[in-house]
């Protein structure tokens, strides 16, 4: 094994010479576990009760929600990215946008699959665009950030649903418009606070525009949602 490590040095030595941004600890991941070396260290969580695992993951997700709602320049979202939060938010939003009745005349309401696909493929396209423009963020980190920043829009959806219970006149429309506009700008601002840091400074506008369009489309879907009853 020692020979392997040594003979692996010339292969992987170059990677550690690349300029690393300070707040992303790369060292821990470059030394990839060979065989059963780290089985005891990293995977000792296999023996804990399921409740502990779930609670820990939920706590991590909750912490990231807090980071989204009060976006300040922290790298926590980027460092421990996970896709549970985006999945949760995406499913919630898609379920709420579905409305329920299957064979109504107004088929213009987005269906579950439509919303799901829009969110995930939209995120993938924005990520690809960010990378093609020379960003230093990784694929899954970007997906994580974009997914978590849907949280304000989900909150707006809940508020809109509540407002619609009261009635669907002009006043409710104006209220919904304000709420959706506020939350969609909050989403855009929150995600740019994370994404734009990884861009060269004069190209931020090029990255922000697709994000704006993405959240605009989601916000528009929320705004034009009308329940079937």
């Amino acid at each position, binding site marked *: 094994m020692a020979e392997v490590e040594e003979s692996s040095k010339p292969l992987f030595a170059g*990677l550690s010479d690349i300029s690393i941004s300070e707040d992303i600890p790369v060292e821990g991941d470059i030394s990839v576990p060979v065989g059963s070396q780290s089985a005891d260290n990293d995977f000792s969580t296999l023996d804990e009760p399921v409740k502990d695992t779930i609670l820990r993951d939920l706590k991590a997700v909750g912490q990231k929600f807090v980071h989204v709602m009060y976006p300040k320049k922290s790298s926590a979202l980027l460092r421990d990215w996970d896709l549970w939060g985006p999945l949760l938010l995406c499913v919630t939003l898609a379920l709420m946008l579905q409305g329920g009745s299957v064979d109504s005349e107004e088929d213009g309401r987005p269906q579950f699959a439509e919303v799901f696909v829009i969110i995930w493929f939209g995120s993938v396209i924005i990520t690809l665009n960010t990378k093609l423009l020379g960003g230093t963020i990784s694929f899954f980190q970007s997906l994580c950030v974009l997914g978590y920043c849907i949280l304000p829009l989900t909150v707006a959806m809940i508020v809109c649903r509540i407002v619609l219970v009261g009635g669907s006149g002009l006043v409710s429309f104006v209220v919904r418009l304000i709420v959706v506009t506020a939350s969609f700008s909050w989403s855009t601002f929150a995600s740019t606070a994370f994404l734009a840091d990884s861009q060269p400074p004069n190209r931020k506008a090029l990255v922000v525009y697709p994000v704006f369009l993405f959240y605009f489309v989601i916000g528009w879907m929320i705004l034009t949602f009308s329940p079937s009853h």
Partner: protein
Amino acid sequence: MSASQGSRSTSTEPWGSFENNIIMQGSGSAVIDMENMDDTSGSSFEDMGEMHQRMKEEEEVTAEAAAAEEEDSGEDGDFLGVKGLKGQLGRQVADEVWQAGKRQASKAFNLYANIDILRPYFDVEPIQVRNRLIESLIPVRMINFPQKVAGELYGPMMLVFTMVAILLHGMKTSGTVIREGTLMGTAIGTCFGYWLGVSSFIYFLAYLCNAQITMLQMLSLLGYGLFGHCTVLFITYNVHFHSLFYILWLVIGGLSTLRMVAVLISRTVGPSPRLILCGTLAALHMLFLLYLHFAYHKMVEGILDTLEGPNIPPIQRVARDVPIVANAVVNATIKSIAAVVQSQ
């Protein structure tokens, strides 16, 4: 047998353990390393080239080792019967599985690396994009020597996505009902289909007419030509005046078409190739705007509503999935029938 096995294992040991561990590391950590590389450097292009090179070398090494092993296993199987075969078989199967996995990882890696092929086309500054957007509405004067066409894809892609968003808005406000399919799918299909399909078609015609334009330039040209469409649709989906639409269609649609046509003329020689190419492009571009406006428009429903009468056969009220030509024909015939009936 044991000697040959031993020899094989020892002969592959300086290779085998080396390559197994490192390559397993490589294929296992291909995912991890890519992320780390992305985290660390903006010049991940060179890193990926390095990884690619390394993977190629490893592939050659494994090809050699596999060839060596195949020779050995063939001999052993023939010579020793069942016992030798089982050991061989197990190892060979494991080898096959591992190589298949590695091949898949390499394929995925190559796919990832292929994105870098597009990277130079996204190398733009915001000010350049803004200038090109404005220039797309200004026809050039000089058609005697080839006009420069920027070969970038960021602007066109963003314009196509913007048009998808505007189209969605138009479809929703006009109460369009899509029977088989979804609103989003139709919008995306229409916009991307137009951009990619018409670009390819015009590129094919340009190839036939000996015009000097590459596919990338054609995509870029048509993409920026959609800027005019976006503005017209944005205005007229919200302000419903027919005359306003016709004026905007002629002015803005016309300007954007003229620009594309002028660029193409400057790159084509001979009057009839020019006529064919530019006539086709102008027709398609203007008709597309016309189609987009009328396909998702409230007034169509209004016309159908005013044709109530006892002698009129029942018409489909929700007429969105009927193509526009059939719709117009139906309207015209019903109007004439109504006129005839009322004159009697």
